[in-house]
C-alpha cells in the first residue's frame, strides 16, 4: 500500500519557519524538512529532541583518558620501567607530569573521532551512500517540507499554498 505525502517547497527560511509553526498548529504531521543550510530554531519549531552527541563526546573523551592512562602505566611502569633522567619510574602518579600531554591528546583524539563517527552513523552518512533529498534545489536555495497527507487532498493543497509555498506536490511514497 502506498502512502501519499506532500512536498511543500519554500524559497525563504523565514517563510519556512512560519509555515512549520502553522502546519504543526493545524495538526499536520511534518515527516521531514530538507534545508540548504542550518535554519536556527527549526529543530525546536519542529519539536525535535535535542541531540545527545555532546554527551557521547564527553564519554568518548573519558575513554581516551583511561586508555592513555592504562597504556602508559603498562608500558612505562609495569612492563619495562627505565631510569630516564632520574624521573620516577616505579609510580605512575609520580611520573605523571610527563604523561599529561599524551593523556590530553588521546582524550581529544577519542572524543573527536568517535563523536564524528557516531554522527555519521546516526545520520547515515558514509562514502557511496545515496543522497535522499527529494529535490536537488534543497542544497541550493529551496526548503522542502515533507508532510503526511491525511483526508482531503484539495484542502491540504489549499492550506499549504496559503503558507507561502512556492510549490506543492503530491507524492506517492512506497
Amino acid at each position, binding site marked *: 500500500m502506498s502512502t501519499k505525502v506532500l512536498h511543500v517547497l519554500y524559497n525563504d527560511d523565514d517563510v519556512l519557519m512560519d509555515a512549520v509553526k502553522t502546519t504543526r498548529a493545524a495538526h499536520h504531521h511534518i515527516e521531514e524538512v530538507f534545508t540548504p543550510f542550518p535554519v536556527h530554531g527549526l529543530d525546536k519549531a519542529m519539536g525535535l529532541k535535542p541531540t545527545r552527541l555532546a554527551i557521547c563526546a564527553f564519554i568518548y573523551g573519558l575513554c581516551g583518558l583511561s586508555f592513555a592512562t592504562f597504556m602508559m602505566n603498562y608500558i612505562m611502569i609495569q612492563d619495562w620501567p627505565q631510569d630516564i633522567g632520574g624521573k620516577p619510574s616505579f609510580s605512575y602518579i609520580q611520573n605523571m607530569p610527563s604523561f599529561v600531554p599524551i593523556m590530553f591528546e588521546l582524550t581529544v583524539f577519542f572524543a573527536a573521532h568517535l563523536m564524528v563517527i557516531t554522527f555519521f552513523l546516526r545520520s547515515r552518512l558514509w562514502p557511496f551512500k545515496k543522497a535522499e533529498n527529494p529535490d536537488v534545489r534543497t542544497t541550493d*536555495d529551496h526548503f522542502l517540507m515533507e508532510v503526511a497527507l491525511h483526508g482531503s487532498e484539495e484542502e491540504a493543497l489549499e492550506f499549504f499554498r496559503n503558507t507561502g509555498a512556492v510549490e506543492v506536490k503530491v507524492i506517492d511514497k512506497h
Partner: protein
Amino acid sequence: MSSHYEAPIRKPLVIGDKSYHDITVDVARPVETRANKQWWTVFTIALIAFLWGAGCMVYTIGTGIGTWGLNKTVGWAWDITNFVWWVGIGHAGTLISAVLLLFRQKWRMAINRSAEAMTIFSVVQAGLFPIIHMGRPWLAYWVLPMPNQFGSLWVNFNSPLLWDVFAISTYLSVSLVFWWTGLLPDFAMLRDRAVTPFSKRIYSTLSFGWSGRAKDWQRFEEVSLVLAGLATPLVLSVHTIVSFDFATSVIPGWHTTILPPYFVAGAIFSGFAMVNTLLIIMRKVVSLEDYITIQHIELMNIIVMITGSVVGIAYITELWVAWYSGVEYEQYAFLNRATGPYWWSYWLMMTCNVISPQVMWFKKIRTSILGSFIISIIVNIGMWFERFVIIVTSLHRDYLPSSWTMFQPTFVDAGIYIGTIGFFFVLFLLYSRTFPVIAQAEVKTILKSSGENYKKKRENENHSHNH
C-alpha cells in the same frame, strides 16, 4: 526580518545584491569552469618545485642525512626549522574555524574553509621533515607504541619528541575530520548541480550522501561546536608541545619557560600571515571579492599586528630573563644571537616580526591589498628566521668552545624546503579548483544579518518608520 537584526555599525560581510542562489553560483563557479592560464602557470611552477624537492628527498634517503649541511655541533638545522615553520602556519586554520566559532565571529565563515585547507596541507609538509630526518622513513612506525619484540624497548613516553608524534597526528586527523564534516553540505551542493555523470559520482561520494535533513543539521551544528571546543585546547597544545622539544632540553636559549606561549603566539602570527597571502590571491583568481572582503583582510591584519607584538614582547622578555637569570651560558647564548656571526638572522627576525607588523596601526596600510600582501610575506620570512635563530644559533656555539662551528646548508637542504613549498601550493591549487572554497551553507546563514543588500533594506525601513 527582525530575527536577523545586526547592529548597523557592523560592516556587511557579503557585498552586493546577493540571494541564496547567487552564493551557490559564486562558490560553484571555480569548480564548474575551466582553469585559466595563470592557474596553469602557477601550478606548473609549484609542481616543478615539488618534483625537485621530491628528488632531493629521494637523494637524502638513498644516500643519507650526510647530504645535508648538518655537523656534529649543529645536529638540527633546516629540517626542524622547516618543521616548526610549517606546523606554525597550520595554526591559523584551526584558530579561525574553532576559536572564532566559539567567539561567534561571523567573519570567519568566508575564510574558514581555505584556512583549514591550509592547516591540513601545511601540517602534511611539517610531518615530512621528522620522517625524512629519521633516515630510514620505512621504520617511521617505530614511533608508535609497539610491543617489545619489534625493537629492544617500548617508546619513551617521557620524551617531548614522542609527545609531538601524538600531538601532530591528533592535530592532523582532528583537523581533517573537522574540515570534512563542514565540507559535506557544500559537496552536496556541488553534487546536486553537477551535470556530467563523472562529477556527479565524485561529489556524491565526497558528500557521503548528505541530504540536509533538519535532524542532520541539528547534529551538524552540535558536532561543529564540540569539535571547536576540542580543537581550541588542541591547537594550543600542539605548538606548546613543539616548544617542549626545545624547552625541556638543557641547551642555553632553549631551556626557557616562556617558549610555549611564545611559540603559540608566533604560530598564530605566521598562520594568519599565510592565510592573508593565500586569500589575497585566491579571492581575485576565483572572483570571490564579495565574500572575502577588505574587512576580512583588515581583521586578519589586526590579528597579525597583535600576535606580532606578543612575539616582540616575548623576544624582549627572553633577553631580560637571560640577563636576570645570572646564568653565564644563557646570557652568552642571547648575546651571541644578537651580535655573533648569525647577527643578521637575528636582526632580520626582529625587523620582520616585531617592526613590520606595527605598520598595521595605520588604517590605510591594513586596508590596502598590496600592503597586506607584502607584510604577510615579510612576516613569514621573519618567522622562518625566528626558528632558524632559535635552533641554529643556540646549537652552533655550545658549552665546548673547541667544537664551535657554523652551519652551511647544502642544495639538498634548500631543495627539500623549496619542494615542500611546491607541494603545499600543488595541494592548495588543486583544492581551489575542485573544492567549495567557501563554506557556502554557513555564509547563507549570515546573509540576512550581514549581507549588504539586507542591511540596506533594514536601514531604509528604519528611516521610513522615523518619518
